[in-house]
């Protein structure tokens, strides 16, 4: 199926996505540090619509300020799954 390629770069939305990714990270880090980034990625793939995933990857490409290390690693791993 085709999909629109509009990607938003509104800072408020970006900030929200970073906040959400870190928040998800906090839970999975507390379960088990070793599996945290894989499970964050899994959670994001399961619940975020593609435009949100594209936006956070684009944000990472632009520096990814504010992303916690586990969340950053998770976002990194999203790239092939866009």
């Amino acid at each position, binding site marked *: 199926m085709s999909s629109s390629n509009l990607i938003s770069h509104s800072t408020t*939305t970006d900030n929200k996505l970073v906040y959400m990714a870190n928040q998800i990270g906090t839970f999975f880090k507390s379960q088990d540090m070793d599996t945290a980034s894989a499970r964050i990625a899994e959670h994001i793939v399961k619940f975020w*619509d593609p435009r949100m995933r594209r936006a956070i990857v684009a944000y990472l490409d632009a520096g990814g300020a504010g992303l916690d290390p586990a969340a950053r690693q998770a976002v990194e791993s999203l790239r092939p799954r866009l």
Partner: protein
Amino acid sequence: MSFVHEIDYGTPKSKSEKTVTLTVDGKQVTAPEGTSIMRAAMEAGIEIPKLCATDMLEAFGSCRLCLVEIEGRNGTPASCTTPVAPGIVVHTKTERIELIRKGVMELYASDYSLASLDRSTKESKYAALLDIAEAVGLKEVRYGFDGARHPNAGIDASNPYFVYDPAKCIVCSRCVRACEEVQGTFALTISGRGFDSIVSAGMNEPFLESECVSCGACVQACPTGSLIEKSVLAAQTTEKPADRSLVTTCAYCGVGCSFKAEMRGDEVVRMVPYKDGKANRGHSCVKGRFAWGYANHKERILKPMVRETISEPWREVSWEEAITRVASEFKRIQKTYGRESIGGITSSRCTDEETFLVQKLVRAGFGVNNVDTCARVCHSPTGYGLANTFGTSAGTQDFDSVEHADVVILIGANPTDAHPVFASRLKRRLRQGAKLIVIDPRAIDLVRTPHVEAAYHLPLLPGTNVAMLTALAHVIVTEGLVNEQFVRERCEWDAFKHWAEFAADRKNSPEAVAKITGVPAEHIRQAARLYATGGNGAIYYGLGVTEHSQGSTAVIAIANLAMATGNIGRPGVGVNPLRGQNNVQGSCDMGSFPHELSGYRHISTDSVRHMFEIDWGVELDKEPGLRIPNMLDAAVDGTFKGIYIQGEDILQSDPDTKHVAAGLAAMECVVVQDLFLNETANYAHVFLPGSTFLEKNGTFINAERRIQLVRKVMEPKNGYEDWQITCMISNAMGYPMHYSHPSEIMDEIARLTPTFAGVSFKLLEEVGSVQWPCNERAPLGTPVMHIGQFVRGKGRFLITEYVATDERTGPRFPLLLTTGRILSQYNVGAQTRRTQNTIWHEEDRLEIHPHDAEERGVRDGDWVKLASRSGETTLRARITERVAPGVVYTTFHHPNTQANVVTTDFSDWATNCPEYKVTAVQVSPSNGPSQWQEEYESLTRRSRRIVPAGAAE
């Protein structure tokens, strides 16, 4: 026309399994031990006259009308208070008995305000007492009708829905006992003695000023019409009050009370709670029984309307024009901005069938998964938390289960206001001796109410549930209270060990947590011990658990507690979310969430998606769509442009009103389908008038997973049932939908959803209701889940690390605001505000502790400004010690209050369920509405202008 007849057996059913055989009027009768002779006889078709007895209440034995003779026993015992015994021979119609009965009845009749025994006058025509007089064969009253009567203070018509006429009262105490036993409010007493005795509410107050909560149980119990609905009195002016009745389901809260709707023509005469309703067992609250008048409210919109921009007045148009507009706009938007630029919201107020169709329209018709439901803002964390621990996303018990509970933990829920009939059932169990632990920032009614007192109230600070629940776990783990056998057999042992180690950590001890929650450690310890050792432990919770940034974590923490103590998988225990709206369970079950299809199956699972693709004849997107808050973000960003909203008012119910408004304002086509021009409609371009639950067929699913029929009792005043409107949109969009009855939609749901495989309208007609899963393995449904094994196989413990919310108090915003609801109003109040229920709640008030009020120079009733970092609003203060110092509380039933202007956009980490229950605020004296409130008022006024069809343009 047909009536649903209910038999009154006179006394409640006995729970005994042993049976006894006796003879009544020559007939062999078998009944469970403990059954009254009256009930046993009635079950065999032999009716014994009665006045003070009814099967909703324990036998009382005061009227002496139900006398019988038993061979070999002396005297004439009352059949309602005499239990069956093996081999006894009972006579109900001897000459001696009939004489006594006539005498008794004659006294009652002379005492009752009637001119004669004949039926000719208007007031005697329907006099219930005369039915009984006729039944006992009373032909004349020797004492005349003008004898001394009871003291009569005059008719009390203070309650908006019913009257009490002392002249018709025979002081049988049925109302008093109904208020105690069924409702548990204890508002009525018999004052005075003997001939002077009389029923009175409270301390001889009018009903409205007493403790009465207007549930109507007393009205239902009254055998003489002394207490009677005003709507019935009004209908008695003509031939017959009602000409037919049908059983249907309440459309207010998640209890899902079953009602008999008594109708005359297209008008409701009254709603009577249905005794066979398994959720409510013949009881109800003020909303379901009385607050149905909104269906005829003058503000209800009955014609479709459109407008080009939201600053223009509405223009009434034909259905055809409105539907064509919706379809052409949505198609244009998709062409311009891409397929993913539109979506829809399903309604927790509509039926399962309607909800299923809206998500089908979005997925199959729009070709996207941008569908969500208002459950997002209430119980989505329940879904996540229970799915990851137990394997399915629903409460584990039926409501009957509470009758077997020994210890109840109630956390973040206020059932006497939000789930009243469940509260009555809980109170009854507590009066029988079960213990209650309340975990809530506020002293809710159940902490102390007549004949009920919580063993512990842990008044924690808002936002600290996870710390509290983990501290309870700490006590259970470290004091050796874990049910190890259960955990070993039923749960993943490694995950348990990992969790137990975490729970045992000192930082989770009550002593450490006391500093976070503000609750003394010793109380936490005692409460934990009580739950773990007090017998059957059941946890009931509400939005005070889910609407937090750690909402999902708190649900997991609750599941952990139940697993660790083995309180799962049998009656009397379990984890029970109290769902807010009538069909919030159903809307979740029906695949309203963007990432999953009906029955909680992820959209990316190929086998599941293919099944739908084959049935629906289209390819489906395998990626999850946008959730409500994400839709609004995307709208502000310009990638989301059109939305179809069925029966939800996101502008009023969702947090951070300004953000919602900005999102809606950024869209090019907002379609709202509802009964009234709701707040969201201020931003709409098309308004499609919806239908009420009285005007449609379908099903609702209550908080116990119970699927119940909603029956159409009148034609839709707007012309169509809601599902028909969705079909019209879909057809106009080019995706055909043809159903002739909602039962066909249910057949489709059953075909595509394993947990619903056995459900059909036919089955529901036959058995009344079923609880899903209902399939080959459980053909009549599943009252208690996870018996023997969890849905996911083994139960899974997860770590629940407490993380303080980022919404913190500080010098600018030193108080914590939490929100809730009250009995007489419902959610955003669109229905209840349009009924006489407003008499109990004219406005939302801010509850504030005397200490905080004094510090700010605020007096009771003063206007105050309530400000957070999101925005500010004004409302009036109520000074009370129900809230702790540092905490303030308000309801959100009135749009003018705009409480959600103040709430923030923080949300649950897993589900984005908004953090309604914690906002840092400041309160200061004020002299009037805020600027936002004023601007909003004027917007609302402008957007409610309507130009009727045919008027000059």
